[in-house]
């Protein structure tokens, strides 16, 4: 079967066609204009992943929350479960950009890291 997907690896948004055999093997990837697109298409058709960006509560910070992201992409089906974990986490000011706020979230091997500084109030 063939699957038509839109690449989300960059803002170009290339339309990619993936040919998949009955046993799930990927036969061909066409329409992408870079290597990242090829990788995205293969992942999307076998085990879709998304990066996650959200916020973590901060105690004693200049702002109530500090932005964070998954250091690498997470399995797409675990995104909402990851949100639950992140929404119970708390950081303590000062937070520095790159600080690990949740380690190895849901045993995915992926850390949730701060994407901005949050100085003390």
């Amino acid at each position, binding site marked *: 079967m063939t699957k038509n*997907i*839109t*690449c*989300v*690896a*960059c*803002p*170009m*948004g290339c339309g990619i066609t993936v040919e998949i055999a009955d046993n799930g093997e990927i036969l061909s990837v066409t329409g992408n204009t870079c290597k990242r697109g090829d990788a995205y298409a293969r992942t999307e058709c076998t085990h879709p992943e*998304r*990066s*996650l*960006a*959200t*916020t973590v*509560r901060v105690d004693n910070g200049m*702002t*109530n*929350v500090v*932005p*964070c*992201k998954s250091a690498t992409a997470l399995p*797409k089906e675990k*995104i*909402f479960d990851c*949100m639950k974990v992140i*929404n119970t986490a708390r950081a303590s000011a000062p937070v520095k*950009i790159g600080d690990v706020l949740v380690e190895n979230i849901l045993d995915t091997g992926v850390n949730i890291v701060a*994407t*901005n*500084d949050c100085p003390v109030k």
Partner: protein
Amino acid sequence: MLNYDIVVIGGGPAGMAAAIKAKECGVDSILILERAETLGGILEQCIHTGFGLHYFGEELSGPEYAARFIKIVNEKNIEYKVDTMALQITGDNKVYAVNKTDGLIEIQAKAIILAMGCRERPRGALNTPGTRASGVMTAGTAQKYVNIDGYMPGKKIVILGSGDIGLIMARRMTLEGAKVQCVCELMPYSSGLTRNIVQCLNDFDIPLYLSCTVIDIKGKDRVEGVVIADVGPDRKPIPGTERLIECDTLMLSCGLIPENELTREVGIELDNVTSGAVVDENRQTSQKGVFACGNVLHVHDLVDYVTLESQTAGEGAANYVLGNVREPDYITTKGVNGVRYIVPQKIDLKNEGDVKLYFRVGNTYKNASIVVKYNGAEIIRRKRPRLAPGEMENVVIKNDVLKTFSHDGTIEIGVEE
């Protein structure tokens, strides 16, 4: 009165990139004025990733992208005043500003770089009928509530307008547990990036209704619902297609308007289509020594392009201050056949380098060509598999081609299907 070689109005990505570039070009006396409490501009609340792929070759969040420039501003000891509002610029390049510690500040600048960014089109500008219930806000305002202040502005959301901020907020609100009922777009296409439709709407089964708009807002104290209706080719609601969608919040993502009050007041020539200043290839406006860059000049879809444009403006301002200027010999640029606008609007024929022209189309096209003509003669033709209003295009006019032009000519860019 203070004296600076260059005053930069706005400390977002445009202002920082311009200031850094001007410093690298040899101008030491630079002051950035920023209205908010920190440098960084709107990037500070854009916590999603997708910034920097072109410029840094990696995918950063907004605050991370900003942080890289804030660090350089500090390392290069570029002066800045935060919490400071620029009030006026004058015809002799003075800047008036105000803040809590200095009071009213008068600054004589040799050059001014306008980098004030843009703001969202509000409900009042849309003339959406309905009650004055609370719960109607722009998507960017909601983004600040959630990402900076840390609270949810609503539980059941309708989003009007499918610009990128609206799409990003549809995902953000969904991740935080809200129910996004739908996104309505007046036009038959989305003005947002395709990838945002995929990863912000399709991933979460949020419906996108094209050629559809909000015609009434219901609710007394709080929004209780909105009436949406399909629109015809004339963009007027089609009777009989009205339906009520229950919601407590209506978010508006209906376009961005460059914030050009200072520019307009001093009489700098503005472009009716971009709502930004008319500039040359150095991003100099019609007032000598005043440059403009970033979203105050024209609304960009990628911050990476803002950075590049602002470096051009920063270099232009530095050259102006250092006296590396000549009397220009301008030709003009003009969008035709589906091209809405081109920036820069004029090019100095004495320019020593290549000139990149940025432009936007007014409709979606498949397998079309971009055709560049000088005084009617074709000079460049480029095939494009896809063209969309939401995605800025560019072509480069090589210097050897530029040198063949004579003054008073016009470069036209158009689409051929």
